[in-house]
């Protein structure tokens, strides 16, 4: 298969490369661009570990072809922190609340929570849980993740 040129902005920087059309965006980010913070947990769109922001909206990067991202604006977990290393408020809240244990599902959660807050997150526990139900975690039992999101949502309002 011949490779197709791909050019997009990721975490504020232009990334130029090429990939076979069948290569998923998740694999392209990880293998071609070295952005290994986005993880693969299932490769069929259920676990949410591969969640990134595309033009400000969450997408499962395992359910996109790399070529489809051409010309778009992407943000991955590596782009959350400040250039000087200060953590994004969502990252800080996760640490404060012990909302991660093994950390494998965490990048996907962070991107989902960022979108949730952008849209104006609620502090209602049931709604938060439903919103987060698209990201699977096997370690934390979600309890502290919900606490972190509640605090972030409260802080916003």
């Amino acid at each position, binding site marked *: 298969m011949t490779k197709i040129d791909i050019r997009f902005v990721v975490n504020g920087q232009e990334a130029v490369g090429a990939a076979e*059309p*069948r290569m998923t965006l998740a694999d392209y980010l990880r293998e071609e661009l070295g952005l290994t913070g986005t993880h693969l947990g299932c490769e069929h769109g259920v676990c949410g570990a591969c969640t990134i922001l595309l033009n400000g909206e*969450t997408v499962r990067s395992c359910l996109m072809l790399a*070529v489809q991202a051409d010309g778009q604006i992407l943000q991955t977990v590596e782009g959350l922190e400040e250039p000087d290393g200060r953590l994004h408020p969502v990252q800080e809240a996760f640490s404060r609340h012990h909302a991660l244990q093994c950390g494998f599902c965490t990048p996907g959660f962070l991107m989902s929570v960022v*979108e949730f807050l952008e849209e104006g997150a609620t502090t209602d526990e049931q709604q938060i849980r439903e919103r987060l139900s698209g990201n699977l975690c096997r370690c934390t039992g979600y309890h502290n993740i919900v606490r972190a999101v509640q605090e972030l949502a409260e802080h916003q309002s």
Partner: protein
Amino acid sequence: MKPPPFEYSRPDSLEEALQTLHEVGDDGKVLAGGQSLIPLLAFRMARPSHLTDITRLENLKRVTLGDDGLLSIGALATHRMLETNEELTARCPAIRDAVSQIGHVAIRNRGTVGGSMAHADPAAEWPALALLFDTRFQVRSKSGERQVAADEMFVSYMTTALSPDELLVEVQMQLPSTDAGTSFVEVARRHGDFALAGAGSVVQIEDGVISSARISVMSAGLTPIRAGEAEEALLGGEPNEDLIATAAHRVDSVIEPMEDVHGPADYKRHLAKVVTQRAVRTAVGRAGGGSA
């Protein structure tokens, strides 16, 4: 779980897309949101020789709701666009009821209405919604255009009336009058999962009796199902629990649910009746301009 190899084109115009589909033939597939197709590729359960990526056709993304209740949905409109449309939700809550249960936000950000219709999974919400309202599908091909009615569209399991060289470009749904009650109810193992059973209902009440009724059932056969006999059972009757139960029971004769790891067939059959009852009950509660 990596996709098998395929040829790929990404047309910039509808004409180009139709030309490509014409050339590619039977072995090709259209790629829109990819939320259904890409998992199939990952499992290597689909092996198209050619993918025609239509996601650049921006003018297929429009959604308009006319005062007459005609909802025109461009094939590339995402589920999320429909879900978050407040005007639409006020006019017809069944749509948000249904669409908000399609997977999760990240799926709904990419997945398209056209893609869901063309994929024709009997466990998908959009085909069931298509049967719930008067729906026409605008289809284009290199040789021209045609309209397909909802009751002709879903031919069999994951099979529509579309030929491989045809592209669904728009879905037009005539929403019921503003005094109708609409609803969509699902039962799923977890929030956002494919439903074990689902039903949509539209009900109009005049002078205390049901003057019109529509019921469509999801996840209960090879295609979405219009439950005509159940609808008939409601007509002319007072919308009480007994009538609703009788109607729900009539659903039995038109469904053929399949057993899987989530439950045996008799359990799913039972669920189909339960969701029908709940959908009709909710629609009744919302009818007459009231919201429930």
